[in-house]
């Protein structure tokens, strides 16, 4: 038979690599967990996890670090999906952590940075040794340097200058008690790959990923929804047709103007866009040139 009979598309290759990574983790770690935010990348990870172990169930729980600043559509999606797959959901609650004094709420109302201690506290409490994250190398320049198996010390810290070499598909899972590995099965995926995969697999998403009318304000060059966490500070609210390119904390995740109300239209839009998804939507990345690197060193996702 000719070689042409053994075709393998780039999506097939990315999927196969992700399944391999997930199986390695379950084979080599004692307590893996999948970080699930209800965002599109973690939704794709969940699909890959259900494929990797079929016909068995996903053999690990999912963990949501809940800042308390949620889009209700996303929480509803999270709960529905977890129930459908019969998974255990663990919630690390930032409001509870503020209550107990583990963290104190910054005066500006953002909770991005205080997610990290809550994450690390939850990891320690449940003794998780491997955490699947949906981060992709195309998202951000510090992430472009990160390994698929990213070693974290007992404080959850990333040391970018001292990363383990990663060769072939031979991932080094070794760690001492208390240390952990962040695992990124979507490392080699781009935003567009994620959307092509969502289309191919016909994966349902929370509705905020598609164009809808919403009351927003313009703050700097970002559009924020007016909600319980974002109130106008002199800006005039107006109604715009928007969608979300990323889903994060509802106080710092911005929407983009869009008419894309189907997966096919979103793919067209993403293919034509000239702004990166984090650049377009994340106030938290804009604090400095190395904002992501600094947060990752502290143990951020």
């Amino acid at each position, binding site marked *: 038979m000719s*070689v*042409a009979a*053994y*075709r*393998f*598309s*780039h999506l*097939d*290759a*990315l*999927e*196969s*690599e992700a*399944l*391999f990574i997930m*199986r*390695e983790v*379950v*084979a080599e770690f004692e307590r893996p967990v999948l970080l699930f935010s209800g965002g599109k990348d973690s939704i794709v990870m969940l699909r890959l996890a259900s*494929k*990797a*172990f*079929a*016909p*068995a*169930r996903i053999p690990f729980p999912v963990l949501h670090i809940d800042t308390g600043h949620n889009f209700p559509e996303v929480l509803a999606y999270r709960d529905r999906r977890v129930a459908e797959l019969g998974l255990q959901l663990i919630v690390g609650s930032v409001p509870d952590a503020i209550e107990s004094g583990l963290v104190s709420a910054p005066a500006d109302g953002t909770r991005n940075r205080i997610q990290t201690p809550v994450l690390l506290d939850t990891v320690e409490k449940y003794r998780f040794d491997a955490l699947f994250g949906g981060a992709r*190398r*195309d998202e*951000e*320049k*510090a*992430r*472009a*340097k990160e390994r698929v198996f990213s070693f974290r010390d007992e404080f959850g810290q990333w040391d*970018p*200058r001292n*990363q*383990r*070499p*990663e*060769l*072939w*598909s*031979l991932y*080094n899972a*070794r*760690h001492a008690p208390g240390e952990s590995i962040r695992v990124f099965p979507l*490392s*080699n995926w*781009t935003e567009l*790959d994620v959307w092509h995969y969502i289309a191919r697999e016909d994966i349902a998403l929370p509705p905020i990923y598609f164009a809808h009318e919403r009351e927003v304000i313009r703050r700097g060059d970002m559009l924020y929804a007016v909600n319980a966490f974002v109130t106008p500070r002199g800006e005039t609210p107006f109604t715009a047709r928007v969608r979300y390119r990323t889903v994060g904390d509802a106080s710092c995740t911005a929407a983009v103007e869009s008419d894309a109300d189907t997966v096919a239209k979103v793919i067209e839009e993403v293919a034509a*866009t*000239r*702004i*990166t998804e984090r*650049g377009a939507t994340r106030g938290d990345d804009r604090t400095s*040139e*190395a904002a992501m*690197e*600094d947060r990752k060193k502290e143990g951020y996702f």
Partner: protein
Amino acid sequence: MDLLRFATAGSVDDGKSTLIGRLLYDTKSLFADQLAAVEAVSAARGDDYTNLALLTDGLRAEREQGITIDVAYRYFATPRRKFIIADTPGHIQYTRNMVTGASTADLALVLVDARKGLVEQSRRHAFLCSLLRVPHLVLCVNKMDLVDWSQEVFEEIAAEFTAFAAKLDVPDLTVIPVSALHGDNIARRSANLPWYEGPSLLHHLEHVHIASDRNLVDVRFPVQYVIRPQSTAHPDYRGYAGQVASGVLKPGDEVMVLPSGFTSTITHIDTADGPVAQAYPPMSVTIRLADEIDIARGDLICRPHNAPATAQDIDAMLCWMDETRPLRTGGRYAIKHTTRTARAVVRQLHYRLDVNSLHRDEGSDGLTLNEIGRVRLRTTQPLLADAYRRNRTTGGFILIDESTHRTVAAGMIVDG
């Protein structure tokens, strides 16, 4: 659309970052906010021009020191292919990174400055590509604008490199004259080089034939994980999950399981989307067999008359990657080979190789960071191994220091 992974080697001086910047720019893969951020940092530092190296230098220390420390991964796509670039620093102290980037590459791109011709570093890059068995090698002779687009200069460099590559057993070599700064022969053919009849770099990357690089002959299926749902819907299901390393498997095939040597027949090849009629590299599938035999992670499924060696004495080329402790004869390490982990002791260091002269130093007593040598290992369990030149999956391994947990070496098995 298929996927091509390539590694780039060369230093900033060779124009590597400019070339990558060009490829991204000309394929519309650069984003306005990324470019604006780079322009702002460049202007603040007082650079004369927008320094595209800042795009690939993602870490604070790299930007501060103007050096590339680590492999960075870049992504772009054309209507024909998706590309993953492993962008590796080219300085001598970064052999480790080049080896890492080359380990998964279908193609390696080496740059030379047309004014300087081949330098030690170019030879080292070519050698590492051949050691890692990267199937396709491209030499870009850059800065052709600075040698007046001279055909003579280009051909001299091409001839010298081709002669060197022939000694290294490089399967496929292409040499392209370019000017990365001006975009000549990057995304399209350049009118400045009328005497050059070959493709532009991007055209070559889009069309180089990689489908037959896969080994479809030797069936090798390392078992990664045993799937046993033990659920009411699937009470007796027992499947062996893994990624096909090489060869083609079909239901009905007679197979042998190593190291036990038991034989059985494939009944099903499952995926979450249903059964498939055949599995080939690099598919991740789950195999079911007709007989209940004891199979665990680390075992390997092959054909009865085409099996890898079952060996505890392993000859290999080793690239040492640890800066804290050197390799010593008698050293003990964990070894990870396919899905199997064992322990290994270094019985003998045959020689240390000078990667610039290819001279073999047989009197060497150890390997330090970035050094390459040939060793004999003895493993606690047999490895199910092929020569790396025949199979990059069943021929490659890593060594792990069991006290520090660091990955300390990459190994490539050679015929004993």
